[in-house]
């Protein structure tokens, strides 16, 4: 315990020292231009910034994740045996994801594998739907809406998100249930005679998920398109370009970083969403995150839950990196 305490407080200090060393090195090599970090912010503020950021990055981001990764490679043990002779590193939790329990007769753990790929696939689909919904709106907001219209639109977009995620999910449930307004309307107008099982068909889930992270798509898109000089759109039009050509060759290339960051956000968040699948998933739906949740709280198998969460995280990151590479975008660009 003493060792880890020293580690916990020593690391931020190490970060500070490293930072000093780096800036000194840059200074000597003449890489850095202008006043140095500490000269610009003053020693006290500079030290505070470095310590705070170091602390934050370490405690909030790095440490829990590292603990999770570490846990995912350990067997499930009662607390008394943790750190004991049986607490050895193992790949068992990852093996379980692929092949299921050692007593099962099936060759693969199809249930979980299917849920995993369904989650990834549907997340991609929902990202694309989100993009299709948001692009025209973002373009209108950024390029042609008057200031007054823009304010109204922004308000209309943001206000619904004051309602929390669970309530929103339940609202979809109420709306789409067999006795819900939509079914009543459909039956009342004579279009159908039986209520349609929207929730069982996962319509509710997909709607809920599409809606949940709409803002994460629209704002990066809006920002990116907003920075496009209107004259460029007009120049293209003046040169004879039809509207689709302008979007495909002028607006989209310009907005590429915004599209990438919006899509990355929506994809990651959708793949990791928990509330919507729990509330809106039909009885046969198998989304990956509820499975992860079950590992932790139903099976009380934290190491396995950690392994599952880690699998999802790494797959998502890899997927995003591959897509970015395919579109020739660097990580630096999407944060512009």
């Amino acid at each position: 315990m003493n060792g880890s305490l020293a580690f916990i407080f020593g690391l931020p200090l190490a970060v500070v020292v490293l930072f000093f060393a780096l800036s000194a090195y840059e200074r000597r090599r003449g890489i850095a231009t202008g006043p140095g970090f500490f000269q610009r912010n003053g020693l006290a503020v500079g030290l505070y910034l470095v310590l705070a950021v170091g602390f934050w990055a370490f405690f909030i981001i790095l440490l829990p994740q590292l603990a999770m990764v570490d846990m995912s490679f350990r067997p499930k043990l009662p607390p008394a045996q943790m750190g004991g002779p049986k607490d050895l590193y193992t790949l068992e939790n990852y093996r379980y994801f692929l092949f299921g329990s050692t007593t099962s007769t099936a060759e693969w753990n199809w249930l979980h594998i299917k849920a995993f790929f369904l989650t990834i696939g549907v997340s991609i689909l929902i990202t694309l739907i989100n993009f299709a919904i948001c692009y025209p709106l973002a373009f209108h907001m950024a390029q042609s809406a008057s200031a007054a219209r823009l304010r109204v639109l922004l308000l209309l977009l943001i206000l619904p998100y004051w309602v929390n995620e669970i309530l929103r999910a339940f609202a979809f449930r109420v709306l789409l249930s067999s006795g819900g307004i939509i079914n009543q309307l459909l039956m009342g107008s004579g279009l159908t005679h039986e209520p349609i099982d929207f929730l069982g068909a996962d319509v509710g889930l997909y709607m809920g998920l599409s809606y949940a992270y709409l803002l994460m798509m629209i704002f990066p898109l809006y920002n990116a398109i907003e920075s496009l000089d209107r004259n460029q759109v007009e120049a293209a039009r003046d040169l004879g370009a039809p509207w689709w050509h302008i979007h495909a060759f002028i607006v989209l290339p310009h907005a590429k970083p915004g599209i990438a960051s919006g899509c990355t956000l929506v994809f990651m968040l959708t793949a990791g969403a928990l509330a919507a699948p729990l509330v809106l998933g039909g009885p046969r739906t198998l989304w990956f995150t509820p499975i992860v949740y079950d590992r932790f709280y139903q099976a009380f198998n934290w190491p396995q839950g950690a392994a599952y969460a880690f699998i999802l995280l790494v797959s998502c990151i890899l997927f995003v990196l591959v897509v970015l590479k395919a579109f020739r975008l660097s990580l630096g660009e999407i944060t512009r």
Partner: protein
Amino acid sequence: MAAAVELEGVNVTFGDFVAVRDANLTIEPGEFFSFLGPSGCGKTTLLRTISGFIEPTRGQVKIGGQDMKGIGPNKRPTALIFQNLALFPMMTVAENIGYGLRVRGVPRHERDEKVKTLLIQVALSEHGHKKVSELSGGQKQRVAIARALAVEPSVLLLDEPLSALDLKLRQHMRAELRAIQKRVGITFIYITHDQGEALTMSDRIAVMNAGVIEQVGDGRAVYAEPRTPFVASFVGENNRIRGRVSAVEDGFATLDTPLGALKGRNPVALSVGQEALLFVRPEVLRLHANGGTSGFAGETLDVAYEGSVSHITLRVKTGQKVTASVGGGVPLPAAGEELHLGFTPEDGLLLALPEGHGR
């Protein structure tokens, strides 16, 4: 041959604000035509109306004899060069120039040929593969011109394309633009608030003020024969004295002013008793003038020696300043010296006071 561009009673309003009022104009094919006016007078608005981005609230725009109503900018035989050029930053120079051809579906090899020719025309053949951001200001300018010329417009519209350049480059580009226009032979409609630019480049100039085209004519006409006080003071320097007409005789009139009776030409047929303005150019004023000239007497405030010319500022007894530009070789007065500047009636110009004009 039909006129290149005709404006018939064109009005453009934004809400209650009239940006262009009753523009009537005919621009001939192959002409280098300039709109000259101060910032905010509606030049860009008029140009955007010709190119099709704005539909006139009232009136008609005809290009090549055809009414352009309802025809979008992508369908008009015009090409616009924007005030900020609006080159496409994610494309290379060659791609920029070829863009208009690409959207027209011109096959690749034909397009490449054409782009190559244009690159040579604007002296950028070495730079086709470069990104736009790697070019200098003048080079960007030429890319914009080539991009517009690529679609073979019958009218090229230029919105203050030189305003972002430094003086030297601007002067160079003036000559170059003029040469390009001579070479391709199409109509250029050029917007500027710089009268020097308009005078040196244009076949004809339309002087605009607050949405109204005040006068159309060649450079000599708008400079030497202005028909409104605005044109007289906006194009070139001018001294201006207000008064009331006391006598009229064929072609000339005498104005009663606080500085005495001053005589000048009367092209707008002012009648006795009318309020009017007398304009006298600094370069027609003579030092120590004698005999049959009228003129101004006052104290020399400042003498600015510029080599070939000197500018003398005089304060007359009303407190108003009068400027004279005299050639080299003339003995110059000293500051503070009492001086008399004279002009012949042929060099004075009388114009009616605009309605609702205060001072």
